[in-house]
């Protein structure tokens, strides 16, 4: 475990989580959630759990984002809070 990489990635993780729930434009929030998932995958690969890392990169950052954007195409893209 490279601890300086670990701490940097965990810091970006918290920043992305706060940004994803506080941005009013829902498409931006979803893209930031995708970036959050990708950073989480990097943290896991760095903690030697490679299988979980690439599953999260494919499923968490890929399919979840596609599902969210498909929902957004059928509903509205602005949030009040």
């Amino acid at each position, binding site marked *: 475990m490279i601890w300086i990489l670990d701490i940097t990635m965990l810091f970006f993780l918290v920043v992305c989580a706060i940004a994803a729930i506080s941005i009013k434009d829902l498409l931006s929030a979803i893209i930031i959630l995708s970036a959050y998932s990708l950073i989480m995958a990097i943290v896991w690969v760095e903690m030697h759990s490679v299988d979980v890392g690439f599953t999260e990169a494919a499923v968490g950052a890929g399919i979840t984002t596609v599902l969210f954007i498909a929902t957004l195409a059928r*509903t*509205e893209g602005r949030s009040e809070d």
Partner: protein
Amino acid sequence: MSGIIDIVYAEYNYWIYVTLMMIGFYAMIAKKNLIKKIIGANIFQTAIFLFYISLSDITDGTAPILVGEHGAEHAEHAADVIYTNPVPHCLILTAIVVAVSTTAVALALIIRIYQEYGSLEEDVILAARRELQPEFSEHARQKSVAEVGEQ
């Protein structure tokens, strides 16, 4: 005091996991938009996954892939290798798939709610329901009166 700093430093993964979990929990409770609630649920789930993966990691451990399987030249080296615990990895691999499935079901329900009420804001949906509710209860009352009348 140095004991507290040692605990914070040695287990910083757990502090980040608790922070992320509370961020997700706050979004699930306080945000009015339904998609924001689902984003909060996703953050909550991945925070718990982070806890499990942190739990399985060992100092100086390596990925749980067999060392020295092919050829005997690494065979004496293989006994010294420390692997991280693979059991939480298997649990979380299953949990990631379940998380995607629950997200998909929730988003399908959100599309249906939007078709019915024309909004994703929770207060607008609740106000629309309250407007519809007297009509429903009046209909139910008339139906029960008619049933009693028939008897």
